[in-house]
């Protein structure tokens, strides 16, 4: 509670400070970009003095907090003549609508010049892929679903909506990858606010940093980081969508903001997911389980309901001279999840479930050019929510609902109502100082704290054996960048990570490590960009790895930090083979060597999982992503990833000879996968400003072994377990009316009804259909 009090005091201080200054007027500029033929131009680049923004889907743009009264406005868009004008600004809101003339030189000669923010991110020296989320707003995807289409990324799920999910990035997975939302670590946000329940509509874009993580994402990622950028591109808008589909799945997302002329703002993001997940699963025949199991069967899941509801509220000011945004917020969330199975289809549950809540006050402050060249961002939050697994049904279920009564004091897996609160908070601060166009200095600090309290009403006696479970972690990063715009850049950085643990009766211990790295890029010409980056990463064991979750994961206080050498070399090549046929090829080679690698295994008495260190995992990998576009109505593309992870632990504990699985390929990790997509865009269908978009997506994952590839026979009678090839086809169709104000989407997932399994035997949904309705309204000026 101490941190909470400090946080409250800080919030109060800023609230007072805000109040005192609301009278001050600031300068902003907004408007709309259209062509001389009255069509809306999105993705136009608008540069006002040194600030650059892009126009959104309806052609609108807005720039807040301009410091000078004289401004040079430069606007450019692919296929149009550039626009330049000097204007004088008055205090308050200024409006400038811009009309661009088509370029007489014809569109074929024009290279891709108008870059979206996502494309800008991709041009960084890091091995980074940014997903432009706005293109997916008319789908029912969550963040995880969108990430699954990125080269090098595999999202593995145990079932339908809300099921357990594990994202792997270049072969690293679980806690090796860190998640952020607007640069704030998501570790502490609870099960109600995770990438598999956050809809894509919350995000502006999603950035995937592979292996080398910039310091402003201040955390101790081992293998990379994912940053969800929510952005708030509109001052006054409503974006609401609702979808309904197979397995009684309902999803609602409402994003809205109201902002007064003085800059007072209220932002609301609300979303809800519900599904019965009652899709059919295939069951093997069993000799010993009576008539129901005599033959293989397909039967619906009966205990797999999931729902979550989240409300994010921010109140504050935007576009002030002292703050681009200063927001006090609250994230309220809850989720309910039934467990249908354990780790195998044979373990069927009929009552076991989980509940969780997120109650998280937040504070956000950001200001560009606080003094000229200095950008400041401050964020703080603490999660007061709780998590609980409830297992009180003393019955053994089978797939047909037949139950066997177990002793009254047993649960289905482990009788428990353990409820805990991790009291996790974080404070992040980032300072970025651009000395001039060439030199840039940055400093970032992230402090996180964890202090678990828990009890079980079924076993109150055990409370006295609750031992202190606390960690405090600080990640300090400093960086320097030298760049010559559109020619080359070099960023070097260092990170100092310190963690203090208080683990049960062992008392206090400290650990700290230095990491460092660089990222560099060189633009060979307009079409070719080369990239190289390296980082020595460090990761401290997480609280869950130390303390367990008192349910499925056992504690391991002996864990040591893990570290990894991550190297990326990449190239982006844009070219055209014939007029109108544009290609962008993004290819990367990666190398990783992780030491003291933390992985999860069964503990010795086989009851639970436990995290442990393993010496040495080495990865060589390559991925490529190719995009093709023809004029403005056809795009196609795909990505392909191959990665070879090897076990480098030469000696197993207790032995002095070489381990039989030394240099063996790491099992149970997808190593060859890809996806392709084709999208057709038809304008003015039915009536003007109504557009139709038809898309197809294919996902492919090659078969991989569950256990060590070199061990055991591979004949059918040797029963060597594998996760079979997965091939899934999705089709979607979106009809947008009135330039995207109303949207009707239809989606068909897994249209061939293929049996998809990812975590050995746990089956994912078959064919599914969804209808998605979305309304978008943005009030100008």
């Amino acid at each position, binding site marked *: 509670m101490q941190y909470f009090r400090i946080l409250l005091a800080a919030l109060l201080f800023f609230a007072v400070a805000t109040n005192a200054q609301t009278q001050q007027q600031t300068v902003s500029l907004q408007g709309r970009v259209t062509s001389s033929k009255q069509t809306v131009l999105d993705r136009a680049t608008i540069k006002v003095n040194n600030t650059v923004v892009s126009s959104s889907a309806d052609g609108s743009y807005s720039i807040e907090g301009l410091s000078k009264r004289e401004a040079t406005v430069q606007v450019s868009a692919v296929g149009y003549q550039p626009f330049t004008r000097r204007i004088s600004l008055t205090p308050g809101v200024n409006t400038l609508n811009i009309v661009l003339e088509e370029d007489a030189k014809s569109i074929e000669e024009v290279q891709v010049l108008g870059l979206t923010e996502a494309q800008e991110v991709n041009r960084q020296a890091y091995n980074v892929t940014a997903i432009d989320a706005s293109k997916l707003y008319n789908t029912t995807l969550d963040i995880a679903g969108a990430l699954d289409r990125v080269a090098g990324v595999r999202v593995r799920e145990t079932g339908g909506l809300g099921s357990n999910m594990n994202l792997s990035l270049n072969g690293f997975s679980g806690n090796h990858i860190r998640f952020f939302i607007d640069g704030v670590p998501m570790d502490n946000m609870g099960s109600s606010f995770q990438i598999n329940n956050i809809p894509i509509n919350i995000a502006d874009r999603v950035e995937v940093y592979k292996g080398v993580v910039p310091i402003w994402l201040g955390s101790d990622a081992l293998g990379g980081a994912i940053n969800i950028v929510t952005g708030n591109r509109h001052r006054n808008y409503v974006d609401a969508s609702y979808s309904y589909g197979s397995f009684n799945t309902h999803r609602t997302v409402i994003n809205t903001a109201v902002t007064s002329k003085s800059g007072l703002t209220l932002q609301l993001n609300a979303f809800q997911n519900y599904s019965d997940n009652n899709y059919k699963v295939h069951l093997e025949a*069993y*000799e*010993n389980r009576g008539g129901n199991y005599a033959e293989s069967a397909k039967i619906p899941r009966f205990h797999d309901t999931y729902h979550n509801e989240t409300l994010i509220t921010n109140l504050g000011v935007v576009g002030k001279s002292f703050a681009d945004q200063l927001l006090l917020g609250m994230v309220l969330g809850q989720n309910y999840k039934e467990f249908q199975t*354990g*780790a195998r289809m*044979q*373990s069927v549950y009929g009552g076991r479930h989980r509940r969780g809540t997120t109650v998280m006050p937040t504070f956000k402050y950001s200001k560009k050019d606080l003094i000229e060249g200095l950008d400041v961002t401050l964020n703080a939050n603490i999660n007061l929510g709780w998590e609980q697994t409830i297992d009180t049904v003393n019955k*053994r279920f089978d797939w047909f609902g037949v139950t066997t009564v*177990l*002793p009254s*004091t*047993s649960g289905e*897996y*482990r009788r428990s109502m353990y409820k805990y609160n991790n009291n996790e908070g974080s404070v992040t601060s980032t300072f970025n100082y651009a000395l001039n166009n060439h030199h840039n200095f940055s400093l970032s600090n992230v402090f996180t704290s964890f202090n678990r309290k828990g009890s079980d009403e079924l*076993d109150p*006696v055990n409370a006295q*054996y609750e031992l202190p479970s606390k960690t405090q972690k600080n990640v300090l990063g400093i960086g320097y960048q030298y760049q010559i715009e559109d020619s080359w850049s070099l960023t070097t950085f260092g990170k100092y990570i310190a963690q203090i643990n208080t683990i049960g009766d062992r008392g206090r211990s400290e650990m700290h490590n230095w990491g460092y790295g660089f990222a560099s890029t060189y633009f060979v010409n307009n079409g070719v960009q080369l990239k190289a980056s390296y980082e020595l990463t460090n990761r401290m064991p997480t609280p869950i790895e130390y303390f367990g979750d008192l349910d499925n994961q056992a504690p391991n206080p002996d864990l040591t930090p893990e570290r990894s050498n991550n190297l990326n070399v990449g190239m982006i090549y844009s070219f055209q083979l014939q007029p109108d*046929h544009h*290609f962008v090829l993004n290819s990367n080679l990666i190398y990783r060597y992780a030491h003291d690698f933390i992985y999860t*295994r*069964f503990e010795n008495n*086989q*009851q*639970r999982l436990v995290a442990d260190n*393993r010496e040495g995992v080495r990865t060589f990998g390559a991925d490529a992503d*190719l995009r*093709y576009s023809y004029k403005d109505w056809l795009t*196609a593309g*795909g990505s*392909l990833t191959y990665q070879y992870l090897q076990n480098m632990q030469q000696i*197993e*504990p*207790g*032995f*002095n*000879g*070489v*381990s*039989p*699985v030394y240099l063996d390929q790491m*099992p149970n990790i997808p190593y060859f996968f890809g996806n*392709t997509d084709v999208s057709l865009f038809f304008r003015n269908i039915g009536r003007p400003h109504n557009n139709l978009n038809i898309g197809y997506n294919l996902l*492919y994952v*090659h*078969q991989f072994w569950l*256990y*060590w590839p*070199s*061990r*055991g*026979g*591979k*004949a*059918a*009678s*040797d*029963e*060597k*377990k594998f996760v079979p*090839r997965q091939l899934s086809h999705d089709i979607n169709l979106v009809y947008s009316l009135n330039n995207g104000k109303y949207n009707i989407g239809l989606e068909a997932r897994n249209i061939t009804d293929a049996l998809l399994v990812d975590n050995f035997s746990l089956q994912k949904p078959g064919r599914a259909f969804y209808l998605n309705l979305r309304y978008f309204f943005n009030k100008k000026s």
Partner: protein
Amino acid sequence: MNIKNAILTIATAAMFVSCGKDDPAPANPGNFIIAVTPAASTGVADYLLTASSLDGGTISTQGQGVEQDGTYRYYLTHNNKFFSMLYGQGNPGAVTVYNIQNGQLTKLANTVTETVQAFTPVNDHILMTKISRNATNPTATWYTFNTNSMQVDGNGSLNTSEIAPGDEIAHFSWIKQVGNKVFAPFFSIKACCDAGFGTAYPDQAWIAVYSYPAMTLDKVIEDDRTSFIGRYFTDGMEEVENGDIYCFSASVATENGKDATLNSTKPSAVTRIKAGTTEFDSYYFDFEAASGGLNITDWLYVGDNNFVVLSDKKADKGAYNTGKTIGIINVIDETYKKVTGMPIESDIESLTGMSNYSERDGKGYIGVNLTSGVGYIYKIDATTATATQGLKVEGGTITAIEHLD
């Protein structure tokens, strides 16, 4: 377009690549089944290898063996079938049943039961028990698995509080059919809070006697000359040719489940229940004295009143440690002979415990896992007290040796 075509072609081609499914015969067909686990620390299943002889040759998990799912498997042969049982972490346990045809394992059934902690053949069944470790739930559940129909055809529960002293509960170290009864030697555990497998009654031995198939409690045989019979997951009771039952006590009771708190004052010893009775008789063989300070951690009956014993020095004693010293005891003569011909103990990583093999012809076969990573099956001759290196096992640790006709 070419690049994209190329990529698409590769992707499409890759989709049609799947592993070859030719069915080669195992490299070593035979009627012995050896379970080998490749790297314990990653929690991977065993591989089942076959061999025609335990006295020589080489087998390896490299590209050979039938994979067994799950981290810990236990094995048993009965009714000329091989049962592979998954210790299921609180989840249901799987049982896979094989027989051997032409020297090759052939799967007969894949079934599901409760996870089990002690199991034994009884008539045509396998009797399995799942034992509580929680004093608030003093119940052991039992199941009978019919080895002909390969179905669970009976179950029930046992009260593990009424047979244990004080507030503690009983945890069966093993169960075994004796005549038409089932004997269940147990250790007493606090099963609460921080003490778990600790006990306040370290100097007593108990055997619960149940009728079969009703599994009703007949009586509890008690003895205060030794600590409890057997060990966790270890069969400490053996019937010899004349029907007498011999029991060993490892003397590894603890105060709170941790080795540092070993609290029994009794030496490791062998005691006896005469055929047809349900009482310990006056027989008492002080193994610790006879062996010069060792304690038994496991044994294998090789016939004619001779046992191959695995034992530990007093300094290395622990509730879950498996000894690396091999000797022969004759329970009639009350003699102990150390076996010669074994590798030096510092080169031994572990010995195979519960699933070693003997035809009760005076010879026993023990799996010896060397720290070099190579394993051998050693033939132990009880009459000469000598060990002879036999079958070489590469690519993992030997966890069981079984045989089918």
